[in-house]
């Protein structure tokens, strides 16, 4: 599976300052937390999807379709058992499911999907280097910002190595479809050790290459893509902040968008 999410286009979202985008994603998270009614969260999700479309990055979501569906299904199935609501639908040995808890589970599924998608929106429209640069400009210490950007960068590399290793061991007769739990456990070592070792080799080598090009994590460096805050950034931040304020007002003063009171 290809885990590179960056989608090289030149839309308005790609041109925003990385700081704006990082801040924007955090604001979308906050907006999501304002409501726990599925309809309201569905509305927010639609908004995020609309931004995806204008950023021409819907195909990035397609890559993660299985994960997204899985997250949603798990949430919808599990949440109802842990929440109590007024309209009980059925009871069984102390477990009860109500229509409110069902709706709440639905809302949480949608919320999780919105979180993941908002994060993907950042990754799909922002280069690693820009994310690192944005974090540094936001005051995050250089080594931390660089480590984070590196982690994002290396995920696809290790996934590729992992895929090759799986193929190599399957060629030797490793049965990945076995239903036997013991065989399943045994197959873990032949996969994990080569993955671990190749990851170690790779990172060690990378560190050598970076130092050889004069890189030091603790000293300032210039940046080829100089991010600049423009009117567009102010507009984007303004719109999101206003939306957040409006949502807070709706929830706190008008008590809209609540299925289970007293919960996020």
């Amino acid at each position, binding site marked *: 599976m290809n885990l590179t999410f960056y989608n090289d286009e030149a839309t308005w979202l790609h041109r925003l300052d990385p700081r704006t985008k990082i801040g924007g994603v955090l604001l979308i998270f906050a907006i999501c937390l304002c409501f726990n009614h599925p309809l309201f969260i569905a509305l927010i999700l639609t908004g995020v999807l609309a931004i995806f479309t204008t950023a021409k990055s819907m195909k990035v979501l397609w890559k993660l379709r299985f994960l997204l569906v899985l997250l949603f299904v798990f949430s919808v199935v599990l949440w109802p058992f842990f929440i109590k609501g007024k309209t009980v639908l059925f009871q069984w040995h102390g477990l009860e499911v109500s229509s409110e808890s069902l709706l709440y589970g639905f809302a949480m599924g949608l919320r999780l999907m919105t979180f993941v998608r908002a994060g993907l929106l950042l990754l799909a429209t922002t280069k690693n280097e820009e994310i690192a640069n944005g974090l540094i400009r936001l005051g995050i210490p250089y080594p931390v910002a660089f480590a984070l950007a590196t982690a994002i960068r290396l995920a*696809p590399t290790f996934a590729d190595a992992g895929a090759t290793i799986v*193929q190599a061991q399957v060629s030797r007769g490793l049965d990945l479809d076995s239903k036997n739990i013991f065989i399943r456990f045994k197959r873990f070592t032949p996969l994990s050790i080569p993955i671990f070792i190749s990851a170690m080799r790779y990172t060690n080598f990378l560190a050598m290459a970076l*130092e050889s090009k004069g890189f030091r994590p603790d000293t300032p460096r210039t*940046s*080829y893509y100089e991010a600049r805050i423009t009117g567009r950034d102010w507009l984007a931040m303004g719109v999101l902040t206003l939306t957040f304020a409006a949502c807070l007002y709706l929830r706190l003063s008008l008590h809209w968008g609540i299925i289970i009171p007293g919960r996020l």
Partner: protein
Amino acid sequence: MTSSIVFDHLSFSYQNTSIPALQDISGEMSRGSFTMVMGHSGAGKSTLCCAINGLVPRFLRGDYAGGVIVEGMEAGKNIVPEMAQVVGIVLQDFEAQLFSTNVELEMAFGLENKCLPRTAMEERIDTYMRVVGLEELRKRDTATLSGGQKQRLAIGSVLAMETPVLVMDEPTTDIDPEGRRHILSLIRTLRVGERTLVVTDLDAEAAVQADQVWLLKDGQLAAQGTPVEILTDSSLIESCGVRPLATVALFQAMNWPGQPLTVEAAVAEIESRRLICPRRPECRAISTLTNGKVILEARNLSYRYPSGDINALNDIALTINEGDFVAMLGQNGSGKTTLAKHFNGLLKPTVGDMLIRGRPVNDYRRHKLAREVGYVFQNPDHQIFASTVREEVAFGPRILGMDRKTLERNIAESLDATGLSGFEDKNPFLLNRGERQRVAVASILAVKPAVIILDEPTTGLDYVHQRDTMEMLKRLNQLGHTIIIITHAMWIAEAYARRSILMKEGRILLDGSTPTVFSDENMLAASSLAPSDLIRLRNRLGLAAMTLTDMVKELKSEAVPPGSF
């Protein structure tokens, strides 16, 4: 001439090892010169490179004695990022060096570290992108580049830092022949100028253009001199694990005067001295194709990767007979590996069928398939996991449920066949690359598959290990295993394969006996390949033999009329 790099009795051994990696190296490389460092694997070439910019001993630690002074800076005394002001280094694994989202950012990385302002960066990036010929690919994702392009980017990004010294550790390893040609011509371009070049390579053909050649052997400087001095001494370079130049070797074997370093020089020499008269190759029936039963068959096979826009394989029709020795050739991305992965069912055809012994691959259970077709991946480290060689080799047979007795016998036989007897209790992770490669082969062999596929079995190995590996495969072939190799090393295909399959853009361009395929230089050129110097010489002279020994025999029997063959 002023000296740029001075080695002063440099010795180094890595932590926790007893054998020194470098021993008492002394020598000078003058400013603006081009030095080629050659030697067997483990001779200390990479260690020498890393000592120039201080990675040895600042990053790779161990016992360090003596020193290296580069442009007035002492390598061991300065930290690596400091040394980066005077030394640029392109490390061996070019894949791992590329780190940025796109090509221009990769070029910018070193410049950002130097704190250059944006306008200056842009100028340098423009200049050096043109030097390495990547100007069209500025915004491309580095992961989508071909091997040769990646290597050129790695070189370009170091060049852009404009250091007075440039070190490249095996820049042409693991690259297809066309990529290799690009890199070698790039090195020629870089020669002109003030820059001091240090390049390591396993191939003598690359050293011809250097100012001086250093030969390393077991960590010691075995010889140094001009290319003519060093490369004409076939026995010396062979003792250092480097394949001798075909032209020199042939002239020596024939006792001809002259020591030409290139095919063109050799042909000129032969013509001017009238050593032999070039002639047309006689049509001799060469019985090279086996007539065993068909074991693998692809029928109108096409394949498209799930994420791909175009077919990786197009309408492949191919049969491979039992007992054959096949080489699959072609550039990176020509579809060799994709096709080979169909042979053992790792990939399923999008259209068409893949048959093993007449039955579709899908009909086989996984463990049954592993007994029919074994697949040795390019990088042995992608499969080695056990703590002893015996355990590693036993993994396959054990998972297929072989009984104890057969298991023991198979392990012993496969270790014997790969020359690893006595290695049973060694830790595979501590073996060298050539030995790890053999462990990988042994672990496939232990299952006794009828067909063994090897993806680039000789990459990263020196001449001696390459020859050992190939001789081992030859023995396995004689024992009845069908061998299929995917390779970029032309001389390997020429000397060992009975049949060669040439691929380009997902199609089979040419398929036939190896001597026939390698006689067709136009077709090879069409898929961006070229025969080795030996075979180019053979084709110019109109000979039929494919190895040096056979060529000498053929030439010496000149007087004998063709009919007697």
